[in-house]
């Protein structure tokens, strides 16, 4: 069972349909999903899930970036985690990274720097962000665009982040994450 965490502000009336349901549609081709809003998730209610996907959110929605204390469970749980866009930014901050302004919208070229389990040749990806993560040294960088880091993996844990939106283009990234763990 996969937990998909809705990272959208409750003030965004369409975040769920635009950023969460497309992930669920891709993931449920392989495995059943449960969706919870990030405000409902804590370390005590993660037991039923095998892996966790953190959704992206609208460009004006940066609400989780100011609430990283709510996400310490990402550090403490020993489950595979894939953070997408806002999910990656939030996970990166939780592990001591920092944000930098980086605006990319639309199809964007990325270069794969390190062989990994999620993608081998996702050279064109769909980007929709105003910020990128400068990850802490606990992460290795898997891919980057001309402007910023696009994919990371924690060196000791199965915690991944992708800044691009694989649910829009490159859905195999989500499916390979599910199949790998």
């Amino acid at each position: 069972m996969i937990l998909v965490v809705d990272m959208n502000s409750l003030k965004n009336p369409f975040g769920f349909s635009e950023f969460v349901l497309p992930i669920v549609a891709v993931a449920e081709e392989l495995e059943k999903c449960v969706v919870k809003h990030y405000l409902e998730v804590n370390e005590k209610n993660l037991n039923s899930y095998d892996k966790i996907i953190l959704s992206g959110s609208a460009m004006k929605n940066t609400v989780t970036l100011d609430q990283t204390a709510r996400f310490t469970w990402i550090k403490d749980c020993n489950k595979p985690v894939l953070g997408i866009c806002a999910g990656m930014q939030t996970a990166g901050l939780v592990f001591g990274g920092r944000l930098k302004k980086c605006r990319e919208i639309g199809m964007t070229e990325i270069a794969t720097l390190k062989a990994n389990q999620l993608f081998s040749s996702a050279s064109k990806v769909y980007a929709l962000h105003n910020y990128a993560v400068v990850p802490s040294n606990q992460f290795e960088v898997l891919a980057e665009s001309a402007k910023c880091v696009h994919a990371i993996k924690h060196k000791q844990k199965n915690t991944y982040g992708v800044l691009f939106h694989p649910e829009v283009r490159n859905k195999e990234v989500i499916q390979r994450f599910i199949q790998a763990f």
Partner: protein
Amino acid sequence: MRLGVLFSGGKDSTLALHKAAEKEEVVCLITLVSENKESYMFHTPNIDVTTLQAEALGLPLINKATEGKPEEELKDLEAAVAQAMKDFKVEGVVTGAVESVYQAARIQCICNRLGVWCFNPLWKRNQKALLEEIVSEGFKAIISGVFAYPLDNTWLGKQIDEDMITKLVALSGEYGLSPSGEGGEIETTVLDATLFKKKIEVLNSEVEAKGNSGVFRIKQARLTEK
């Protein structure tokens, strides 16, 4: 939140409008009327009908002409959104984008620059399910343009119903068409929908078709009681 809907008068923008109105306040429609028949962004047959549709919905319409030159037309769209922000205090823009990253990314750029929310309530929805929702909601949406093999003039002017969905889905399997016309294979015009206070009656129309390309052009129409 006060929302403006990018409105072409077709099934997707009309359904997006209904989704938006369920949750927030839709305060205006925004239509770009493109002179360029090849525009990837805005061209659609019967764009003039948006005036009647806006009246049927009881919503003000920002109707902006554009020559439709690639990228130039985006400046016209940006001006229209800026006008919606000024005249109607719009805080967010709603689109009917489903699959097109080309359209979605360009509109996201404009909204980002202007500092308004951009919402795509139909984004990545299953296309057959979208068509079924249009029928179950009781929309009267007709095919107003066909632009791909094996579609032809026999489709023009026909209302989307369950039988048509079955045919479109079969053609998508056989010929790789997008069933709801996401690849530009089909254009639609909505004559009636849940939020329409009146419906549109077509009084005079003509079909212009050649092979697998054609349009159903509404030449004269009026609003009638539902």
